[in-house]
């Protein structure tokens, strides 16, 4: 009998050592012995009846306990027009009494095990197994409660959903509606659709009546919600009870049940909610690997800050631009992007600002910083002041040069452009998150003839910076540049941790494609290998 080890039911998911992503179900033996079936000389030949031993029903793994997996071995041949019939009953006795529901399944590739690798794995035998997923609550649906009538309202009172007062109020409104309906032509339009606009022919309601009607409508909606919840509980209860299955093969009107020595086999199963989606094992493994990589490197960076980071070409461009501005004896301008102090791009641009400010102070060049957020302004002023004192020129710092220019997008652009045109800077740095205004800033900047270095993680604006600026720090290069300068463990560690992730992705891309190409060329099990990356469920 195919044995599938029940998934572990420990609630906390332990880090799984097994790298084998998917638990291939034990192969269902396709035993060659022909079912001993007193085959009437009809058109159904014995070998087109599934093997008795292979017919089985188990709880569907990795599900919320609402369905059962019925499976059987694909018979030797499936003549045209044949179909499988699954009979489902609530108890063994129901089969004799004829109280069972039949579900017909037609042979086609979608009922083969290969379509559900998370249950049947991807081995060779998956294609030899047929399956059907049966939810008992769908075949034996619970009764749907009817519309609100007097009897139902009274019943709700007994179930403590309504108090006496509320019951009286509801009955009064119900009486009114009944009376009204009998007055208007009986064949009148049924309850007007709940369009916002009520038809004008309903009689003029007093405001009190209208308030009652509104309350009644809210009551109706609330009761429908309670009904829906009760239905879900009822379905869960039905699903939790054992169900019994018989399998048959049908051709035209003739049905032959899979049986053992004359007696059709009845298989039993109970659906149970499971605790782990096995299909997501590769997701869990990858998430844990990436997270631990980031955290370990942050710890390493705390102890050893001089972790290697490649030289960022953008930083040379920055120093060169400041040098040129000093030669032309024109000020340096630093334009902050949007975003609050907490955002990654602002932290990165502030780190680079301190570098730029200290270089400018060394070259004794005036630096003008533009902001559009009060907090960022304050932090920028600190950074520039500290850079000036460190360069031994505390008097060079002038608070007015680091100012909040404007707070919303278009006035910021207008103000910064005005200052650019007036002060004719030698070098302009535009760093941080930018929106559509990036084009306006860089266009005015280039008209002043200054060297422009931009850096942003807003990918939509990169094309405009690339064509208008002399150098552009693209996306994560902005973070790398700030980590390179500030050596801040958080940034260093996460940068290196993400590099581990990128290395993993690159290796999977290169090695994966190579292996799969070779495997496919040699007609090996490449689907199984590629399945490692399958994201299911």
């Amino acid at each position: 009998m195919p044995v599938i080890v029940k998934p572990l039911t420990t609630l906390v998911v332990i880090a799984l050592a097994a790298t084998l992503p998917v638990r291939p179900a034990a192969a269902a033996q396709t035993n060659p012995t022909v079912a001993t079936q007193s085959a009437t000389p009809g058109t159904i030949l014995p070998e087109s009846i599934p093997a008795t031993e292979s017919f089985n029903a188990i709880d569907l793994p990795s599900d919320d306990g609402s369905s059962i997996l019925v499976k059987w071995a694909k018979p030797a041949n499936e003549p045209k027009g044949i179909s499988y019939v699954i009979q489902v009953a609530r108890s063994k006795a129901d089969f004799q009494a004829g109280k069972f529901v039949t579900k017909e399944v037609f042979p086609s590739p979608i009922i083969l095990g290969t379509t559900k690798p998370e249950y049947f794995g991807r081995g060779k035998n998956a294609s030899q197994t047929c399956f059907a997923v049966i939810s008992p609550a769908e075949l034996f649906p619970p009764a749907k409660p009817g519309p609100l009538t007097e009897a139902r309202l009274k019943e709700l009172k007994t179930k403590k959903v309504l108090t006496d007062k509320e019951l009286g109020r509801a009955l009064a409104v119900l009486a009114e509606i009944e009376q009204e309906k009998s007055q208007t032509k009986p064949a009148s339009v049924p309850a007007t659709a709940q369009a916002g606009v009520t038809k004008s022919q309903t009689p003029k309601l007093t405001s009190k009546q209208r308030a009652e009607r509104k309350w009644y409508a809210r009551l109706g909606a609330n009761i429908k919600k309670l009904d829906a919840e009760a239905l879900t509980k009822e379905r869960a209860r039905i699903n939790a009870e054992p169900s019994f299955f018989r399998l048959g093969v049908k051709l035209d009107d003739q049905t032959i049940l899979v049986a053992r020595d004359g007696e059709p086999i009845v298989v039993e199963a109970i659906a149970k909610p499971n605790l782990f989606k096995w299909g997501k094992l590769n997701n869990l493994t990858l998430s844990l690997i990436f997270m631990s990589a980031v955290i370990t490197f942050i710890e390493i960076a705390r102890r050893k800050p001089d972790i290697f980071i490649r030289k960022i070409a953008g930083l040379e461009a920055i120093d060169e631009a400041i040098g040129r501005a000093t030669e032309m004896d024109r000020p340096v301008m630093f334009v902050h992007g949007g975003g609050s102090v907490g955002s990654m791009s602002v932290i990165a641009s502030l780190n680079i600002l301190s570098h730029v400010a200290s270089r400018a102070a060394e070259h004794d060049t005036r630096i003008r910083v533009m902001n559009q957020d009060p907090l960022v302004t304050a932090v920028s002023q600190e950074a520039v002041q500290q850079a000036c004192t460190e360069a031994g020129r505390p008097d060079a710092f002038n608070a007015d040069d680091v100012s909040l220019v404007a707070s919303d997008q278009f006035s910021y652009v207008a103000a910064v452009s005005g200052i650019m045109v007036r002060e004719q800077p030698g070098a302009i740095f535009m760093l941080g998150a930018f929106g559509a205004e990036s084009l306006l800033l860089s266009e005015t900047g280039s008209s002043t003839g200054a060297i422009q270095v931009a850096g942003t993680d807003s990918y939509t604006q990169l094309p405009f910076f690339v064509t208008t600026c002399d150098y552009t720090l693209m996306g994560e290069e902005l973070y790398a540049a700030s980590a390179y300068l500030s050596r801040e463990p958080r940034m260093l560690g996460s940068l290196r941790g993400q590099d581990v992730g990128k290395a993993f992705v690159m290796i999977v891309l290169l090695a994966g494609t190579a292996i799969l190409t070779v495997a496919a060329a040699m007609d090996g099990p490449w689907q199984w290998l590629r399945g490692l990356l399958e994201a299911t469920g």
Partner: protein
Amino acid sequence: MPDDLQLQPRRKGQAIEMGVLALLIVVFLAVSMVFQKPFSQHSFGDTMKAVGTIMAAGITLIMYSFLYRDNPLFKIAENLYVGIALGYSTIFAWRQALKPEVYQPIFAAPTSDALLTALMHRTVPILLGLMLVMRLSRKHGWLSRYAYAVIIGWGAGIAIPLITHSYILKQLHAAVAPLQAAPGPQAAGAEVLSQAWLLHVAAPIFGAAVLVLGTVAVLFYFFFSVEHKGVGGAVSKVGIWFLMVSFGASFGYTVMGRLSLLIGRVQFLLDEWLKIPSQ
């Protein structure tokens, strides 16, 4: 930004500007009266529709005055827009959030049983919401951290598996495939490649190889743990080429998008304001 920008124009220049502005306003009103006829509409609704269209056209033209230079009229229109948008979202903060989720379940509960269940599910989040608002007071600002803790904690926790699922696994599953059986592109079918490059057999494989190597090159460009010298330099250069062609595509599409916005406004001015029935 116009480079001949004079924020404080000289006395004479200002007078000319004022004159031109006054003239423009008069022309605008005259044209609007002729085409919209706001006062000869029969119902109040239609009159307000006409007045509204005139106002919309006025705002559109005032916004375009920014092209000449940043002027008081533009600043008024922009700030009015910020205020209107602010009022609009405040009303819907009530109508689409607090009213259906806080006011109605509790104050408009049809039965006491419904009120009880509502209180059971909603008391804690309402408290957290009130704590969030405490962020405004300097002294009790820290209370808001509990609300942020729940929101950002849950958001960060759930993001990890979902991003690994959709951004990494699904994308890698599509990217990693035997070259001869790679899922091809949708629009530029392989036959396009073969037709264009006459590599009938090799085209699909060549295309699939370009996809894999290109992705690796772009990823390597954003790889910071290895010096980009020698082979590394070459790979990152190839990465740059792919990036640049893709930025070119984004550039072209962005130009297309901005122009569509302009076409949309011209459409409004011509069709609805001036009611010019184009053929």
